């Protein structure tokens, strides 16, 4: 008994060392992942942001077609950086809807004119109510939604060129 107890401090040290080492070696993940992935989209009804592009509501999403929902804003710089990738996704047949967070119609119209408009619909989320309901912690974020309005995947941050094939694959998978 005494013999075994003698080793206890060393064992405690090894345990502490293992905890610290694993914390140091593990890549840091400061992203806040939405817990809504795998669940149904929350009910929402967002008015149109700019004339010519309709708004976004739950009813219009349940048409059996998988799509991307891009949470973006004209004041967000990574959103500008990802716009060529969104245009590429659109060209390759992806259906993309958008939620404009805390923005004005004028700014969004100018943004679309400058960077192109890959969106079928753009909902106006002026008070970030829908963003909070989605579990989104910033802009840009992109959600893959299946034909029944279920969230399949969340992409946090701007879409890089290397992310485009993954998102297309996720859309194809959601189509079943």
């Amino acid at each position: 008994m005494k013999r075994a107890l003698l080793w206890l401090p060393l064992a405690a040290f090894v345990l502490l060392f293992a905890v610290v080492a694993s914390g140091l070696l593990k890549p840091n993940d400061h992203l806040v992942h939405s817990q809504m992935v795998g669940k149904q989209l929350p009910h929402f009804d967002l008015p149109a942001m700019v004339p010519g592009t309709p708004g976004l509501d739950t009813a219009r999403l349940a048409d059996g077609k998988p799509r991307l929902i891009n949470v973006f804003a004209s004041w967000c710089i990574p959103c500008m950086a990802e716009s060529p990738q969104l245009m590429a996704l659109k060209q390759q047949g992806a259906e993309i809807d958008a939620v404009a967070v805390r923005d004005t119609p004028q700014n969004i119209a100018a943004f679309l004119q400058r960077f192109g408009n890959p969106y079928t619909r753009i909902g106006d989320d002026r008070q970030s109510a829908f963003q909070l309901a989605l579990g989104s912690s910033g802009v840009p974020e992109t959600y893959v939604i299946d034909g029944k309005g279920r969230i399949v995947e969340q992409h946090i941050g701007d879409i890089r060129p290397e992310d485009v094939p993954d998102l297309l694959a996720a859309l194809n998978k959601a189509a079943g």
Partner: protein
Amino acid sequence: MVGLRSPVIPGSFRGPLGRRSRRVRLMRIGGPRNKSGVTGWFLLVAVALFHAAPVLADTPLPPARLAYTQLPDPHQEAQAEALMQTLRCVVCQGQSIAQSDADMAGQMRAMVRERIARGEKPSAIRQWLIQRYGDYVSYDPPLSAVTAPLWLAPLVLLGLGAWIARASFKRRRRRQS
């Protein structure tokens, strides 16, 4: 979040202290030309700052009314305040939404106050946020397999302390008798 960035030449403009030390060094190295060298640097920095287009990476919209306005009912405001102290701002992750000036924290405060004013229970609001952001959003971690060590460690340590105390008291008594 991207903050304000302006092109600054590394090492040339770093607050009053850094600037002074740089100037002193320049004067020592440079001969008669040193004075114009310093002016040149300042001119360069001034021109750079003048032409810097500050990149505004924040919403042009004003914060929601309840983000910075207390509820009229002091009891409800106290409830909301207590809840906001224990909800994490998901943008500035080391702060609660009560402490943070981030736009999103303001929107979250407004949401908390609106719901409290509507008569919702603080625990229900916390639960609603946990469903969306996970336990991470709450500074009041629930008991689960992951957090169990956090809750149990004090009890285990207390037990260990009592055991050590008992053993040492026993030893002393034995020595005295």
